[in-house]
């Protein structure tokens, strides 16, 4: 399974997290669904679908929190028969990122994922460039940006 990142500072913390938490699939993206790193995906179409769905879930829970008059939820876990999904935000120097983690219940657990996610968040915070402003993707550039990102994420 390969781990790839569009921005190099993400790679080392992510590789460490995947190894320690036993995560099967990981996406790190902006709240808008722009993918910055991935682990375990073999098809670009799966990355795009997962990113869109993850960002949408995050936006929905943020809105629920807003309507309840409280800060955004720290994380969301959804457990199935064989796999679990953990979705949470990570504050970094590049702004708020969203992590979508799929773990195999036979190889990992929510406790392990939560434990090492805290470390991932701290590592990403420490590694992220502090003085940079997140690049805005304009509609005109969207397709090219997406294509470039997917090429990087799949080593093309």
């Amino acid at each position: 399974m390969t781990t790839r990142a569009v921005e190099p500072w993400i790679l080392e913390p992510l590789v460490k997290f995947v190894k320690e938490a036993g995560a099967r699939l990981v996406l790190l993206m902006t709240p808008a669904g722009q993918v910055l790193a991935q682990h375990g995906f073999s098809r670009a179409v799966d990355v795009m679908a997962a990113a869109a769905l993850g960002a949408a879930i995050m936006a929905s829970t943020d809105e629920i929190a807003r309507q309840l008059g409280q800060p955004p939820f720290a994380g969301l876990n959804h457990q199935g028969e064989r796999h679990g999904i953990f979705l949470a935000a990570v504050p970094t120097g590049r702004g708020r990122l969203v992590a979508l983690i799929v773990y195999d219940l036979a190889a990992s657990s929510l406790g392990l994922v939560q434990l090492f996610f805290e470390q991932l968040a701290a590592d990403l915070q420490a590694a992220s460039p502090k003085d940079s402003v997140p690049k805005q993707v304009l509609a005109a550039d969207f397709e090219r940006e997406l294509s470039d990102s997917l090429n990087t994420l799949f080593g093309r």
Partner: protein
Amino acid sequence: MTTASAEYGRVLDLVTRVHGVRGAMLVAGDDGLVVAEQLMEGIKGPAVAALAASLATRLRRALEAAGVGAGQFWHLQAEQGALLVVTAASGVLVVAVAEPDVNVGLVRLELLRAAEAVG
């Protein structure tokens, strides 16, 4: 009528009253989350719970592969302390963190009692 948390507190008391025990926890065996805890300061409960549950799962598989049946009790001795774990029938782990020179037999007995009470 006692609440579940009061009952869990009473169960953990069985373990923590043993001299040399620095803390006890009930941990959900499947997901490694803390159900109840009585820990001295400085012990990272969620970390111990997640890692103990992960270890318990692997030990269970090793024992199954060896054809020796389900594990009942395990004890890890370290330089500065010990970790002792019993699995309850429901899959909940009863975990004790203890001093290195704790009376292991007594802790084991109380862990088994606690596991029986948890069910």
